[in-house]
């Protein structure tokens, strides 16, 4: 069901953007150094790999949702696209120009067409400026609408659902929802084509959230805007997006049309994410499959697929051929040892807990038995190291970076899933059998 396409499944070729692609992100990478200052050169600290080799296209007029947990790099990605931080590598083509390479004044000019809306309506407006000048500032910066700026600002205030008389008020005189509307008016003032929205409604109450989302949709229709909509709230993403991209630990793990992604997620992380949202309906099936552990550090992310250390569907190394229950037991045992989540006073009890049907046969069994011995002897680290190197590090999930294009079940849009379950030679098990 899948076509292997190892080389950046989503890139449309270098620099080439077809007509309905407004923004093309290609191999975008951002590493932060951990320290700066005069003496930092003396210490060679590894960088924080916030965004790693992300590629996708945004089509004109669509809303592309970008979802992920805190720390997954989605905000950094947005800022890197807008060149608010300089990318470490990669290209961002916006209507033909590579934003990543534009310099000072060219970049400043180009920013007219790309605007941004921020998460915190409190801090994204200068508390010492009145609403009118705030809305007019981008026009002034680009020397647009001279002489008619005030008129236009008032018009925009009305467009976003505020009173034009609010022109002379300070931001603190408005509520969160209204301030987010001021943000919208400011972004719209230079008539941009593309707006990056960084969690624009997550600071708002539910009922206000709906008001602002509706306004954003109406404005999109009226002005033909394209949104890159970043959020951690999957309900909001599902509501507003045409297509959705999911990020985990700096990498894109899945991208598909909204219905397709929510109904047929093909990456185990997306599945876990979808399963863990509390549904506002007590009758919905509470089939929560909760992920274990925490997100690993972006300083030394796992090799291959970054999700593999928590993945409930880690693929067993080629040398083994355990059945799925046995492999699951081995996997869970290895992680439990690595995280030391149990007490090992009694080898038999541990064995019974993790391997009620007996340890696997062959080399796998030898390694497991050995690990059980070591755990019982309180040699946790040795045991963990042996288990991880035998079972986790040898997996294709650790040795190769996944990048596959899957046939969509709903619609005919592209469906990208960075998971080796979709490589050709693996019989992809029916979804949701885990």
């Amino acid at each position, binding site marked *: 069901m899948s076509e292997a396409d190892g080389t950046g499944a989503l890139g449309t070729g270098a620099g080439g953007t077809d007509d309905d692609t407004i923004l093309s992100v290609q191999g975008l990478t951002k590493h932060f150094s951990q320290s*700066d*200052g*005069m003496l930092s050169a003396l210490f060679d600290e590894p960088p924080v790999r916030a965004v790693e080799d992300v590629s996708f296209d945004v089509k004109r007029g669509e809303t592309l949702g970008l979802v992920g947990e805190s720390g997954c790099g989605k905000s950094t990605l947005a*800022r890197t696209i*807008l060149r*608010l931080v300089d990318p470490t590598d990669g290209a961002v083509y916006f209507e033909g120009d590579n934003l990543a390479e534009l310099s000072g004044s060219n970049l*400043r*000019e180009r*920013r*007219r067409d*790309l*605007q*941004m809306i*921020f*998460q*915190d309506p409190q*801090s*994204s*407006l*200068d*508390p*010492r*400026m009145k609403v009118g000048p705030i809305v007019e*500032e*981008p026009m*002034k*910066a*680009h020397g647009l609408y001279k002489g008619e700026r005030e008129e236009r600002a008032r018009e925009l205030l009305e467009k976003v659902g505020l009173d034009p008389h609010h022109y002379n008020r*300070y*931001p*603190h*005189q*408005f*509520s*969160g*929802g*209204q301030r987010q509307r001021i*943000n919208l008016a*400011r*972004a719209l003032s*230079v008539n941009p084509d593309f707006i990056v929205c960084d969690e624009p409604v997550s600071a708002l109450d539910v009922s206000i959230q709906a008001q602002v989302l509706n306004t954003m949709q109406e404005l999109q229709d009226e002005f033909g805007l394209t949104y890159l909509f970043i959020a951690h709230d999957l309900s909001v993403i599902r509501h507003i997006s045409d297509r959705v991209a999911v990020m985990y630990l700096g990498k894109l793990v899945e991208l598909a049309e909204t219905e397709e992604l929510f109904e047929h997620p093909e990456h185990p992380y997306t599945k876990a994410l979808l399963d863990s949202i509390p549904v506002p309906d007590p009758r919905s099936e509470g089939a929560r499959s909760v992920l274990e552990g925490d997100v690993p550090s972006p300083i030394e992310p796992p090799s291959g697929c970054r999700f593999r250390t928590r993945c409930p569907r880690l693929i067993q190394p080629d040398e083994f051929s355990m059945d799925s229950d046995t492999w699951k037991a081995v996997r869970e045992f290895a992680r439990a040892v690595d995280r030391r989540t149990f007490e090992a006073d009694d080898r038999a009890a541990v064995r019974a807990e993790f391997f009620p049907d007996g340890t696997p046969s062959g080399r796998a069994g030898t390694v497991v038995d050995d690990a059980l011995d070591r755990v019982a002897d309180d040699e946790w680290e040795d045991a963990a190291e042996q288990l991880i190197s035998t079972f986790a590090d040898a997996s294709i999930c650790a040795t190769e970076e996944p990048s596959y294009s899957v046939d969509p079940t709903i619609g005919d849009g592209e469906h990208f899933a960075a998971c080796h379950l979709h490589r050709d030679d693996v019989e992809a098990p029916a979804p949701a059998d885990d």
Partner: protein
Amino acid sequence: MATTTGSDTDSRTESDAQAVESDPEQPAANVGWRYTVSQVRRDPTALAGLGIIGVATLVAVIAFLDQTVLPMFGIEQYAIAQAVWMSPNAEVAPQLLPPAWTTNVFGEGTWAHPLGTDDRGRDILARVFYGTRIAISVGVIATTIALVAGTVVGSVAGYYGGRIDDVLMRAVETLYAIPFLVLVIVFMVAFGRDLTFAMIGVGIANIPTFARLIRSRVLSVREEDYIEAARAAGVRDRNIIFRHVIPNSFAPVLVQATLQIGVAILIVAGLSFLGFGAQPPTPSWGQMLSQSRDYMLPDPWFSIWPGLAILITVVGFNLLGDGLRDALDPRINN
């Protein structure tokens, strides 16, 4: 219970709701001069400071008119003072007279010289009066120099960070490492001993105070989303610094500046005492103190008057500075 009208229903507001319920401990952002002024007006100590500074400034302005402006129009120097109550030009007064209500070894006080006369028979009240001009202008000008230079250096360093920050701040710290008086005196020895260089010297020596203060504020302000929003909108860095960064970092600097005027007055008085700064016969408080040193034992009054003038003025600026701090810092009020 409230009788609510129909129009009330329609005009329910978001900002109403917001102002109160969402965060009772966080007052609405305190913005604008009007708010600051209203806060200061409710604070009696700040008002007292403001009163002292007001009187001192008024005196300084009259003295300036009297000594410098009016003579330009051919009017006799000290015309205002003479017309009102005293004659600073009177030459014939006895020397070292005590205040009017006392006597000392040199003679008996007279109401013609209410605070007495100095070792040349000049009226002490008149000299204290005209010394105000020097004190106020020195304090304000020296502090303005430090404020402007410090703000630019500090905000540029804080906003850009990295190498620019390193270079600027290390330079500032070098300046900071030199003892204050040594720095000013070396500067004056190099360029000249008069008042102008005293002001410039004190101004330069004060730059680090302001640069470091505003930099620390800028470091937090530049992380605010509205700075990023302005950058994303394509606003030039220069405009961001002057329109957003500095206005939002300025409150503590303003407080510091007010306090620093008092400090500058003290320092320049000290310099005059040492013989740097205002040169005789220009009346300045520091120099008056210096001259009265020799007569301190027979009659301490000669030293008390200029000392008192310095004290009151400096206290005035400190009171106002504290009041401003309270008014500008929302965490202290409420």
